[in-house]
């Protein structure tokens, strides 16, 4: 299993969720966050604002679906307003993929076995 952390722009969240829904990837967690990104925020005039709102989607998928999920997120997260990003000031976000060793629901933990001996 792999965990996908997709840090995307808030306006890209709905297209991403729609794409993942259509592909059958439904379970996910959504976290609000802020971050400056590579350009260290935006600088309107003399004021620098490094806290740009972001949304983090945390999705755990089987190994076989990682490539598909990342591809769908990349394609959908680019459908936001492009004029800002094309100027090179604000990027679309980042995707990180990490390992997950175990995953089980709290209600029925015994189904997947794993480290739980009971």
């Amino acid at each position: 299993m792999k965990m996908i952390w997709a840090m995307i722009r808030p306006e890209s969240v709905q297209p991403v969720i729609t794409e993942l829904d259509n592909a059958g990837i439904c379970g996910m967690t959504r976290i609000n966050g802020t971050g400056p990104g590579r350009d260290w925020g935006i600088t309107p005039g003399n004021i620098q604002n490094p806290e740009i709102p972001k949304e983090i989607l945390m999705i755990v998928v089987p190994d076989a679906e990682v490539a598909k999920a990342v591809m769908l997120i990349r394609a959908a997260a680019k459908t936001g307003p492009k004029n800002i990003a094309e100027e090179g000031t604000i990027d679309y976000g980042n995707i990180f993929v990490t390992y997950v060793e175990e995953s089980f629901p709290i209600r029925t933990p015994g189904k997947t076995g794993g480290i739980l001996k009971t």
Partner: protein
Amino acid sequence: MKQILAIIRDEQVGQTTTALAKIGIRGIPFLYVTGRGGRQKGTDSVWGQRGALNRDCRMQLKGKERSHRPAVPGEELPGDLSSPEKESGYCFLPRRMLMIIADDNDVEVIVQAILGASNTGDQGKGRIFICPIISAIPISSGETGEKSLS
């Protein structure tokens, strides 16, 4: 070292904190998140009909019954009608996510404590993920390895 990510319900936070304190785990970050499980796609549940429940709607859920029974016509449902996401139809429910970095040998004890405190048998109790962690460095001392966890 392992990272334990547990997504639990709001009302179970107190019990979980108490259970973890009994086995010596203190100082855990609880993040405010929203999420949904694999079975909650679209408008299947009563929550989906109300649309996405984002972070701002969380306070309105206090004291309301949460269940996945079908909606009764004319029943007042919790949620924010003025939410800009109400038409999306995505069923994101407020949850809390706790993160614990623990030694390999302690993982099972911690997981059992979380399960014992959070599992009451209802659907939608949350999920636990266990991920490998390469290193942990406290900001104050800067030491690495197993000593950094204590």
